[in-house]
């Protein structure tokens, strides 16, 4: 792998052998399982083998050249860059959480599927080819050059840091969860095992190592994602094409929603946003996720690595194709799982302990995930120490208290994360398939963490250290600093992840709006509108990002002052009444109820025009655009040199505009 030329010309063969090797490995594990090797050992083998392979690639790809470290020497073919981008893009949330979101929300959840794919059209048409021609190492690098100075560069780094750091904490957390569940080690230890997996891939070889590891991780994650649902589809319909067969299963689900007594209360799977979050919020979410996709630095920087502008464009197409393979499978997972639950779980007789035990014997995954607290029947989980009879008896007691003789929709809760993880068990598949899914989830989390880590550390080492602090630093020194920062950021992310910050995890969805509000306008107008001036872009970024951040923080953490400030008097008065009710509550139960009512009210009312705060870019983006345009028009036009520079960015011909060494 040290010899770039030989390696790139043999890519097809190398990854072909790798894929074959991976399949063989899975088969061998399957055979070991049949021979009676305990699941725990198989779990270790899965995690150890995959991480060892990623580490091996990372070590073979070590480099001492700056351009190899930052942009993989700009020789990653479009096809492979597409795979690497897909792995970079699809996080633990996509792999594990997406299908669950679709299960819970039906059509409304498709806003995420659309939002996380359509943005690539904007990447291809508006941004990626031009950044490639410019020849940057990082996204703030482009802002610094186009808007002449360190202010724009620093703002770029700040926005990048805000949207990438919460995101990487969530990935490290995800690796910890998968590893601990699978190896049976404590979460804290598992986080550091995951951290090791991330660092061996990225530290020695930077972008070059991350690229080739991500390709390997993509192969693992896509195989792991498709196999279980493919088997499920074959079992149910006889055709191994879940993406096509789930249509008929969807019809079964809709029929059950309409007729089955126990399913009443569930929102129809195909109910449009008119009946759920409203069209405005649905479309606003799609817009913010799409624009955010086109602004996230860890995605954009992948297109710096292609050999040419032409390849950068084509590579975006490959990226989306590889992402599409997972995203068009996710709705199938949701529908298959829903059909199983609606047909075989809801409506089950739970009037006696024996009946519940029969249900558990038929659907063992209920017990497995009930013990993990991820499935709740009549609001109760299952005691991990209980055997089947004890578990059935305990569930019987709580269900009796609720006065229900059949298991119905309001009394059955399933965590979003379960859908993908439990599918192998729902289909009654051997443990090896569960192991495969865990390896896929781990690959998804590790690959995204690698990309994010590199985006943050590169911005700090290249933009802050090299460009702003020491422009004469030697190559060796720059690479050393880059690696120290990389390890530093990774360790901080791990420490934050160990504290299990629930806030940070829910903040990940904010990254898209923050990136969209801060970076989309300066990146696109920088290329498409020559008249954009430095002052315009800088003020636009500050105001756009500021408005978005204000809306997020204000609505989430200070909803009471947000309502006082922005909402009409009658809403403020209603809030006053609810606050007073909390103060005057007679006992603890009344206080809890009053507090609940207040929290619900604040969540619903602390908004501008009813827009959910996840879509705050809906405000930040136009503010950024208007401020940039107005300020640009009242400030002197960019210099002749800058205009020539933009002309050069616009045509593919010629050398990149940044000197490389």
């Amino acid at each position: 792998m040290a010899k770039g030329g030989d390696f790139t010309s043999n890519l097809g063969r190398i990854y072909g052998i790798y894929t074959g090797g991976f399949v063989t490995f899975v088969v061998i594990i399957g055979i070991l399982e049949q021979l009676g090797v305990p699941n725990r050992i198989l779990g270790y083998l899965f995690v150890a083998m995959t991480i060892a392979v990623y580490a091996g690639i990372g070590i073979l790809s070590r480099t001492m050249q700056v351009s190899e470290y930052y942009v993989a020497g700009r020789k990653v073919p479009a096809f492979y860059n597409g795979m690497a981008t897909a792995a970079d893009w699809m996080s633990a949330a996509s792999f594990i959480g997406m299908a669950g979101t679709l299960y819970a929300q039906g059509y409304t959840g498709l806003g995420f599927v659309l939002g996380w794919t359509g943005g690539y059209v904007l990447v291809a048409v508006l941004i990626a080819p031009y950044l490639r021609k410019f020849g940057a190492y990082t996204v703030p690098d482009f802002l610094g050059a186009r808007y002449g100075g360190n202010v724009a560069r620093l703002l770029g780094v700040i926005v990048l840091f805000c949207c990438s750091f919460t995101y990487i904490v969530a990935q490290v957390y995800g690796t910890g969860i998968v590893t601990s569940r699978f190896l049976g080690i404590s979460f804290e230890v598992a986080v550091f095992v995951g951290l090791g997996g991330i660092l061996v891939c990225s530290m020695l070889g930077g972008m070059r190592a991350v690229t080739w590891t991500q390709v390997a991780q993509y192969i693992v994650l896509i195989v792991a994602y498709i196999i279980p649902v493919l088997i499920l589809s074959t079992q149910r319909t006889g055709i191994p094409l879940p993406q096509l067969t789930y249509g008929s299963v969807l019809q079964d689900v809709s029929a059950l929603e309409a007729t089955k007594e126990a399913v009443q209360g569930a929102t129809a799977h195909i109910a449009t946003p008119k009946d759920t979050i409203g069209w405005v919020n649905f479309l606003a979410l799609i817009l913010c996720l799409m624009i955010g996709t086109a602004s996230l630095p860890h995605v954009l920087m992948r297109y710096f690595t292609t050999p040419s502008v032409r390849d950068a464009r084509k590579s975006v197409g490959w990226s989306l194709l590889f992402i599409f393979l997972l995203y068009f499978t996710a709705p199938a997972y949701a529908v298959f799982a829903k059909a199983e639950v609606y047909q075989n779980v809801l409506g089950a007789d739970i009037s006696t302990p024996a009946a519940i035990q029969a249900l558990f014997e038929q659907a063992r995954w209920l017990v497995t995930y009930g013990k993990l607290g991820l499935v709740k029947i009549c609001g109760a989980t299952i005691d991990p120490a209980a055997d089947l009879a004890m578990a059935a008896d305990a569930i019987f007691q709580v269900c009796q208290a609720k006065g229900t003789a059949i298991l119905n929709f309001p009394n059955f809760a399933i965590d979003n994360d379960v859908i993908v993880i439990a599918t192998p068990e729902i289909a009654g598949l051997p443990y090896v398939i569960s192991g495969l899914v865990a390896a896929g989830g781990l690959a998804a989390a590790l690959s995204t963490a690698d990309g994010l880590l590199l985006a943050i550390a590169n911005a700090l080492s290249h933009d802050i250290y090299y460009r702003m602090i020491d422009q004469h630093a030697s190559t060796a020194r720059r690479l050393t600093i880059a690696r120290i920062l990389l390890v530093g950021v990774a360790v901080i992310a791990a420490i934050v992840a160990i504290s299990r910050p629930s806030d940070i995890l829910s903040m990940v969805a904010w990254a898209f709006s923050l990136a969209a509000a801060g970076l989309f306008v300066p990146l696109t107008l920088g290329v498409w509108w020559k008249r954009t001036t430095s002052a315009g872009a800088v003020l636009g970024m500050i105001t756009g990002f500021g408005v978005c951040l204000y809306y997020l923080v204000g609505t989430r953490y200070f909803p009471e002052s947000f309502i006082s400030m922005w909402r009409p008097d009658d809403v403020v008065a209603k809030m006053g009444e609810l606050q007073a009710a909390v103060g005057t509550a007679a006992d603890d139960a009344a206080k809890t109820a009053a507090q609940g009512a207040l929290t619900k009210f604040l969540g619903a009312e602390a908004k501008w025009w009813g827009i959910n705060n996840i879509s705050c870019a809906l405000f930040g983006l136009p503010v950024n655009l208007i401020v940039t345009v107005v300020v640009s028009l009242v400030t002197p036009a960019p210099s002749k040199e800058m205009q020539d520079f933009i002309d050069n960015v616009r045509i593919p011909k010629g050398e990149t505009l940044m000197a490389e060494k």
Partner: protein
Amino acid sequence: MAAGTEQAREHWRRTRGLMITCLVVWFIFSFLIHMFAPTLNNIVIIGFPMGFYMAAQGSLIVFVILIFWFAAKQNQIDEDAGLHESE
């Protein structure tokens, strides 16, 4: 440098035209079509209500094809103007 010539201006005019075409298609399949989902759901093909299908698969397929089409078209524009990269 070829920038700033008549050829470059023509190249950019066509590039802009292609950009607008792509964004119009993008807009239709990202937003417009989904507004009609309740109506489209009345059409059912192999079990898929079409409104649901467009959000779950149809639009995604359009996006993938659109990007490859765009890449080919833009290459053509670059080559016509003689502003493509030399291999």
